[in-house]
């Protein structure tokens, strides 16, 4: 009951969003999202989608076009915007005017990303840029350039409060964690607990192993499909992981356990079902980069130290 008192809740709330934060972790989030967004951007042909024959665009609702400012028949303009988005992302990664770069990249990706699917749906979910747009715009309103940025990026007159580094990172972590939670929630609400049944998992594994148009890897999926107990474990384990992943926001132990597990989970899905999840590198926003950098420094000191000693003899 004490824990639930309003004072206590406010304290927990403030500690969660405005506790002591690290400028390094926020800078790492900027670089991680910059790289993943750039990778997806240069891998797609958004301008080409704009240049499709008018029949492809004939069923696009006006509301969707106006919502994203996506209209067919402007491939040259879209090409220019792709270059602008790419340049902004490079600047964001390097830390050149990082907040402005993140803002420009976020706004341009908000416009460009839906071009991939707009001919049949205005919702570009699972295409790799939805979370990036939210994260880049969050970074634009945070002191994300106070570490790992080119010197002249520091235009701030004074150092940010430590809490200023916490809320944006927490928000970005929440964006990533909710992917898993709502994925699990959608399975339960759409299919019920039967989603986790061995027969359902077996059917999906067989489908993605047999359909030759999506079959790149086919050995693991078939192997798993022939083992009902493993299918059951995968089904239940998937729901536990997806619904439980949200705990990484609050628990260091959960973070250490579930974040690597999620990476393995995606690797398993890739190899058994031929489904790629482009947000996987974004799990790096859960890494404590201060600790990682200190560890690397220790290692390099040890290695270089040993080399120097070796050279003296």
């Amino acid at each position, binding site marked *: 009951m004490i824990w639930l008192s309003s004072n206590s809740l406010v304290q927990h709330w403030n500690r969660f969003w405005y506790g002591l934060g690290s400028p390094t972790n926020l800078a790492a989030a900027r670089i991680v999202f910059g790289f993943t967004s750039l990778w997806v951007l240069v891998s797609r042909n958004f301008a080409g989608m704009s240049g499709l024959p008018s029949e492809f665009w004939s069923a696009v609702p006006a509301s969707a076009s106006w919502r994203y400012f996506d209209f067919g028949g402007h491939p040259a303009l879209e090409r220019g915007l792709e270059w602008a988005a790419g340049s902004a992302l490079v600047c964001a990664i390097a830390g050149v005017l990082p907040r402005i770069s993140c803002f420009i990249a976020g706004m341009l990706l908000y416009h460009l990303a839906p071009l991939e699917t707009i001919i049949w749906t205005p919702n570009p979910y699972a295409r790799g840029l939805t979370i990036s747009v939210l994260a880049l715009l969050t970074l634009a309103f945070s002191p994300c350039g106070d570490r790992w940025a080119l010197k002249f990026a520091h235009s701030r007159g004074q150092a940010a409060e430590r809490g200023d580094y916490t809320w944006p990172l927490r928000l970005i972590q929440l964006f990533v964690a909710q992917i898993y939670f709502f994925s699990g929630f959608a399975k339960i609400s759409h*299919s019920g607990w039967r989603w986790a049944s061995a027969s359902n998992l077996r059917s999906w594994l067989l489908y993605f192993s047999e359909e030759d148009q999506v079959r790149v890897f086919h050995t693991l999926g078939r192997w798993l499909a022939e083992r009902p107990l493993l299918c059951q474990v995968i089904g239940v384990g998937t729901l536990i992981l997806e619904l439980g992943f949200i705990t990484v926001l609050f628990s260091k132990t959960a973070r250490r356990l579930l974040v690597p597990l999620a990476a393995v989970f995606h690797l398993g899905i890739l190899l058994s079902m031929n489904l*790629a999840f482009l947000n996987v590198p974004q799990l790096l926003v859960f890494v404590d980069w201060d600790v990682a950098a200190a560890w690397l420094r220790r290692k390099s000191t040890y290695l270089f130290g040993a080399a120097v000693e070796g050279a003296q003899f």
Partner: protein
Amino acid sequence: MVGLTPPAARSLPTLRIVGVDANGNEHEIDYRAWNPLSLEELYAWLNRHFFRMDAVSQDRVASYLLQLSNHARERAISQGGLHFPNRWLGPLTAPTHMLHPAIWSHADGVPHNPFIGLRIYQESWDLEVGASAPAKSQRVLAYEYVPQ
């Protein structure tokens, strides 16, 4: 993935576009041929809108797709080969949500005769039997394009 697969027949419908050469032979088409469209978006659009279009519009779309597939076929048998959506990244290009095999990676596997038409099939098969048993698959010709 969110849904359950159909429990009884265990058959899932899917589309397939094939190229037809002057001899009437059908050929599979590499997913990269449809750039800027990805295979998922193309099939989703075909399912949702294409089959409801009037015949003239359908033929205009098919003509565009035939042009894309022949252009890709020519590239695939050329020295440079068929590019990934980003030619500099090559196979490191970010994949789409579903992976697709690059069946025109080697010139030997690429049809040398130009396509003169396209066919779109709706296919399904019994998951327990396997897709590799064509006699057990159901294949319905949903649309055929042969330019006049």
